[in-house]
Structure formats: structure tokens, C-alpha cells
């Protein structure tokens, strides 16, 4: 019982990171129906900006988070404007291949710029273990920080999407681009804003991932990016609460597999989950059935 709860707590903090990444995927997918493969690399850039602002500029973790959110959203918008926007009218296949090309470009560019070594991520807050229920469960201050920051970001996102004008515009564009533009919504700006939000969440996830694994690397974003996409599909792609649910579920599944079985199986199991959900309920746990328009 103790190990079960310990693994679930561990899974919750990893899962909250996955949820943040998955939100970026799901929002971009919801608005332009594109799997933004480069999202994992946005995360990596965010992690490196976080690293530089703490280790070189000497900022505290919260300033580092803000700076990495800013840089990552800049990169995200640049990618969208340079690579995806010219292809908005062409086939899905071309955009998807471009996204893969972008991901490869940033990965290998990262290897050239940042080097191929794993960089130890500065431990910005002290690692304090808190013992709960007479020492039966241990929660570290890192887990609490990761969890708290993720929840805060999700609440902020819910507020932006649900209660602001730009959020309403985003919902309108994801519902029907043409009608939205007829209503006077600047669709290009709304899409760029979606990339800003998605990339900021990705940057936060990158810094938190650096805290979680304690090292960063130019290829660190790829696997978590893929898994977060699985999380987005699990919860229902395009659905914001679905991405959160999927992220947490996936984090817990991964922690349980590592804890009870073997860490070498945690990556394959994630993809087995994907294939099972695609067979059983392709729209995801919270997704709605929509028929394809001709």
C-alpha cells in the first residue's frame, strides 16, 4: 500500500508535467489540426533558457520561468509564422512533414549550439522531504513545486480560454475558421496567440522537467513530447480538460510500471496505451464523436 501511494504521488508530479506539454499539443491541434512535432523541442529550449537564467544570470526560479516562457513563445510564434503559416492551405501531409523537419532541425541545432553533453540542472530550491502520516509517505519539496506550478498554469489557462475575449476568439477559430474571420476575428493573430500560450506552457514544462530529472540535454524534449501527445490523445485531442486528465493518467501509469515492473518497459507501455485507446475509443476519454465533413 505504501509503495502504491508513493508511486502515485511520483506519478502525479511527472503527470502534471505531461499535462502541461499535452495542453500545448491539444490547443494547437484544436485550432489548426496539426500535430506540432516541434513542441517537444520548444520544451527543450525552455529548459535551456531556464538553465541559463539560473546558472548564468543568477535569477530565481520564478523569474527564470517567466524568461523561458517569453523566449519559448517567441520561438513558437517564429516557427508558426515561418514554417506552418505558408502551408496552411496545402495538404495535411506537407504540414506534418514540415513539423517533423522543424523538430529534427531544432534537435540537431540544439546538439550543435548546446553540445551533446547532459547538463546538470541547478537545484533552485532545497530538496526537503516532508513525511506525512507518521512518516509513511514522503513528499519532496520538488514534487510540491512541480505540482503547484502546473496546477497554477492550468487554472490560468482555463481562465484565459474560458473568460477572456481572446479566449473566446480562440474557441471561435477552432470551431470554424471562416465564420470566425467573417465575425471580424483576426485568425492569424489568434493562431499565433495559441502558439504563444502552448509554447509558454511547454517552457514551464521544460524547466520543471529539468528539476524532475536534474539534467537537461538537447534531445530531452523528444520522448516527453511524444508521450504528452499520447496523453492528449488519451484524454481526447482538442479537449483541454482531456489533456490534463490524460497527462495525469499517463504519469501515474508510467510510475506504476516503473515501480512494479521494470523501468525498461515504461516507454513501450505508453505506446501500448496509445494503440489500445485508438482501437477502443479513438476520440479519447473526454472526446466527442464528430463525423468528418466532406
Amino acid at each position, binding site marked *: 500500500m505504501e509503495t502504491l501511494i508513493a508511486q502515485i504521488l511520483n506519478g502525479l508530479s511527472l503527470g502534471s508535467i505531461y499535462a502541461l506539454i499535452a495542453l500545448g499539443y491539444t490547443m494547437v491541434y484544436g485550432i489548426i489540426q496539426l500535430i506540432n512535432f516541434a513542441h517537444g523541442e520548444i520544451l527543450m529550449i525552455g529548459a535551456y533558457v531556464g538553465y541559463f537564467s539560473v546558472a548564468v544570470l543568477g535569477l530565481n526560479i520564478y523569474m527564470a520561468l517567466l524568461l523561458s516562457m517569453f523566449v519559448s513563445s517567441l520561438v513558437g510564434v517564429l516557427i508558426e509564422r515561418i514554417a506552418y503559416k505558408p502551408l496552411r492551405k496545402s495538404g495535411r501531409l506537407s504540414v*506534418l512533414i514540415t513539423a517533423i523537419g522543424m523538430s529534427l532541425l531544432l534537435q*540537431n541545432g540544439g546538439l550543435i549550439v548546446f553540445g551533446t553533453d547532459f547538463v546538470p540542472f541547478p537545484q533552485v530550491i532545497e530538496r526537503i522531504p516532508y513525511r506525512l502520516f507518521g512518516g509513511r509517505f514522503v513528499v519532496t519539496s520538488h514534487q510540491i513545486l512541480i505540482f503547484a506550478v502546473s496546477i497554477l498554469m492550468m487554472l490560468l489557462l482555463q481562465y484565459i480560454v474560458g473568460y477572456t475575449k481572446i479566449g473566446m476568439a480562440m474557441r471561435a477559430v477552432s470551431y470554424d475558421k471562416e465564420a470566425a474571420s467573417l465575425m471580424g476575428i483576426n485568425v492569424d493573430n489568434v493562431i499565433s496567440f495559441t502558439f504563444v500560450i502552448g509554447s509558454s506552457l511547454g517552457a514551464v514544462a521544460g524547466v520543471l522537467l529539468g528539476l524532475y530529472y536534474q539534467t537537461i540535454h538537447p534531445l530531452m524534449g523528444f520522448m516527453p513530447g511524444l508521450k504528452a501527445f499520447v496523453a492528449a490523445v488519451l484524454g481526447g485531442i482538442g479537449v483541454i480538460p482531456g489533456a490534463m486528465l490524460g497527462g495525469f493518467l499517463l504519469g501515474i501509469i508510467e510510475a506504476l510500471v516503473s515501480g512494479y515492473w521494470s523501468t525498461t*518497459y515504461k516507454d513501450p507501455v505508453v505506446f501500448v496505451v496509445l494503440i489500445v485507446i485508438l482501437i477502443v475509443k479513438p476520440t479519447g476519454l473526454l472526446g466527442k464523436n464528430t463525423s468528418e465533413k466532406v
Partner: protein
Amino acid sequence: MTKKQILVLSSTLFFVWFVVYMATDVWGLINSFQQVNIIWAGINVILAVSLNLVVGFTGQLALGHAGFMAVGAYTSAVLTMHFGIPYVLAILAGAVMAFFMGIVIGLPTLRLRGDYLAIATLGFGEIIRGVLVNIDYVGGAAGINGIAKITNWTWTYIFTIITVVLINNFIHSLHGKACITIRDDEVASELMGINTTYYKTLAFSMGAFFAGIAGGLYAHYFFMIQPATFALQKSFDALVMVVLGGLGSITGAVLAGLGVTFMNAALIELGAFRMVIYSVLLILVMMFRPQGLMGNKEFSARVFDRILPKRGGKDDV
């Protein structure tokens, strides 16, 4: 094709085989680095042409080609090493295994739209790798070592030619045309009574079959295979070849397979910079020529008709 064209083509093919064979085994003109790249050229052509069947002709973005290559490589290696099965049979068995894996993975995922397929096949490649790492019988992460080195220029050439001919014939058959309609408009194709899931799965598992052959050739040339050999990088390489060659061009894929092999050999010292070049190429091609460099055009001997002076009548049309 007319009888004369077939004759010309097959004698050219034979001539190419003969010259390279003599140059490597008899005259000793080709050094070992070049020999390795000649084998790579064959493997890459097989990968490019077979992936083009899935991505270029059927329009399904599959990113798990390296996974099928791994299935073919491991199956054939185990068969020749532990069961003493002859080389050709082992390679075919590996390909058949990859074919069945293609059906298993294709049936659930190909019912869905293309984007899911990309991720699902990508995930499948990772599952294969993850499973291989955990099987002690095939050496776990260390892989299999000491596979008999049987693949040579002749075998590579034979398998490459067979692959290209078979896929070319498939594309020009009724089944191939059904696949092309799926790429062009899936809904319309379904309305025409084409069983789209069936044809998508067929194209996908045929692609897997030939990727399995490429894997078998690889295993029996480099005599050592590891799960890490068949990482995503290899699937992306195949995709780069397909896109550069042209989505829907057999000769384009052949040329791109040769070209990328040549570039890999020439840029071997650049490391990560090589992939930067490829990824920029990929993005630029998608922006300015989304159908790939050759598009769906085929490079044919008629080009020579235009260059060379005309000798006679119109009998060779």
C-alpha cells in the same frame, strides 16, 4: 513497355551488376568504405521505394519503418544463427514476419486519419525497440553479434531490383490504382466502393515486408544488430529520401536513395550538422515543392530520346 525496352533495361541492369562486381571482387578498384556504402545504397533504395508505397502512393504518413526493419533483421538473424535456415529463406521469413506485424499494427491505426497514424507508427517503432531490449534471447540492449556475413553486392542488387520491380508492378495494377485514389481523396474513393481500410493495410504491410528485407540484408552485412540501430533516426532518414525523391515517384525514390547514401558518405564527418541540412531541405521542399522534387513524375529512358539524335521511325513510342 515494349520487348525492346525490356531488353535494353535488363541488359543495362546486368551491365551495372557486372561492372560493380568486377570492380569489387576482381579488379579491386573499390575500397572497403565504398563497398559499405554500395550496400547501404541498396538498403536505402529498398527503404525509400517501400516507404514511398505507403507515404507517396497511399498518402499515409508512417514513421515506423525502422521498426519493421528491426523485425526483419532480428527474425532473419535468429533463423540463420540458431536454426541454420538458408540465407534467402531467412530473409524472406523476416520479411513475412514484418508483413504480419504490418497487418497487426495497421488494422487498428489505419482506420483513423493520417495524423494518428504518424504517432501510432512512431510509437510502434518504439515498442519494437523496447521489447527487443527486454528479450534476453536476442541479447537485450547489446543485441546480436556474430551473424554470418553473407550479404554482398550480388544479393543486395538482386533484392533491390526485385523490390523495385514488384512495387512498380503493384502500383500499376488495379490494387495500386486503388491506393492512389485513397491518397487523392479518401472519402471519394470510399464512395466509389473501394475498401479503403483494406488497401491502406495492404500498402502498409507491403511496405513493412520490404523494410523487413532491408533489415535482413543489413543484419547479414554488418553482422551485428542492436535495438538502437533501428531508432527513429532511421525512419526519418527513409522519410527524407521519400520526400526528396518525390511523393509518388518510384524512380525518384531510387534516385533519392542513391543520393542520400552518397550525401551520407560525403558528409560523414559533419555529425549533427548533416541532420540540420536534411531537416532544412525537408522544410524547404515542403514549402516550395510539396509533392517532392520529382513529384509523381518518373524518370524514364525517353529523356535520352530527347538528348540523343533520333535514329528512325516512331516504332519505339
